[in-house]
């Protein structure tokens, strides 16, 4: 998932940076005082989950947890995931600083989409029903991320088309695992701290 420096063409890098900056601005406005600790915890969860790599073919895959961040935070997932990606680029060299905008957009925008599509469903009904919808949202976020990574690669050159297909199929097991993980996390949150989801409505009002 970490696109490296030099792999994308300049228009893709610039467009990704501008879109990511807009997303972060929207996210900061949607991040009230009470939500900052939750954003920090989810940023740390993303940071750690992305460090455990499982090799597949010439590359490797890892959990992302951006679906979980999106369902809990909404637009605030943009600054939370941006912080995680920035620290990974600085500490470990994953991805690069010039492509930080594209990586942020590829990971955070699917999180926001998962929130738009499944956030209300995950927050309503019984905890078990909410967990099922959250699991679907988690798997959807991984699928959308692979599509966006493939799109970024395809826009940079035709020779990346086989790589884009490889990225998508390699992440099908990750979709299943992350869906289960997100579902169980939301089930636990709904049972022990249901206001984690309901307070977001107050923030929007």
């Amino acid at each position, binding site marked *: 998932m970490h696109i*490296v420096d030099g792999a994308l063409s300049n228009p893709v890098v610039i467009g990704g940076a501008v879109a990511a900056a807009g997303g972060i601005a929207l996210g900061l406005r949607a991040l009230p*005082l009470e939500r*900052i*600790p939750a954003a920090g915890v989810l940023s*740390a969860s993303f940071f750690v989950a992305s*460090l455990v790599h499982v090799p597949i073919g010439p590359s490797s895959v890892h959990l992302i947890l951006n679906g979980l961040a999106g369902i809990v935070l909404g637009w605030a997932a943009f600054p939370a995931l941006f912080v995680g990606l920035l620290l990974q680029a600085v500490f*470990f060299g994953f991805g690069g600083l010039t492509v930080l905008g594209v990586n942020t957009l590829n990971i955070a925008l699917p999180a926001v989409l998962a929130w738009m599509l499944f956030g209300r469903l995950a927050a309503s009904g019984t905890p078990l029903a909410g967990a099922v919808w959250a699991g679907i949202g988690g798997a959807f976020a991984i699928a959308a991320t692979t599509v966006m990574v493939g799109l970024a690669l395809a826009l940079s050159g035709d020779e990346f088309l086989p790589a884009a297909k490889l*990225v998508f199929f390699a992440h099908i097991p990750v979709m299943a695992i992350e869906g289960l993980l997100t579902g169980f996390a939301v089930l636990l949150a709904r049972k022990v701290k249901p206001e984690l989801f309901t307070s977001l409505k107050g923030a929007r009002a």
Partner: protein
Amino acid sequence: MKRIVLLLTLCLAAPVPALAHKVIAGVFPSGSAIEGEIGFSNGDMAADTTVSVFGPEGASLGEAVTDADGFFTFVPEQPVAHTFRADLGAGHVAEVTMPAAEVAAILGETALEAEETAAAPAPAATGGGVTVAALTGEERQVIAEAVRAEVRPLRREIAAYREHNDFQTILGGLGYIAGLFGLGFYIAARRKLAG
């Protein structure tokens, strides 16, 4: 929320294996050729991968293919900077450049070795007297190959160590996240109190 934070803290307290990787590439002089290695920092090397060689203005100088250990060799013909580029798939691109001075040194070394070989028969014509035999070009080549074979695993180990992501660095990243979000919380609280 307290239970979630406690659960996450307990999970994070358990050390997790960081099996991360990133693209590594390096080139170095090797007798009359340029030798390089390409792969990932977790030890997976790029086997049977095509490496394209470019000159300073992007002119194509040739190609090389890596062996099973991710090593390749390329014989330079012009004393210009050589850029080596390989596409490892899934967005991983390895690119490394050897400056013109090093390439010129390789070409100069080749010329020197040619002279050395031509001068080798000279001591035999001396006849009487004690002669200290200098190394012939052939002997020099054998020694260079032996040294390269010994240095290769050390070089790989140094590259792997440089890319090692230990538990301490992960904790540092988590500390930065806590610090950044704590600072954000402080700023938001100040704004709320002022309002």
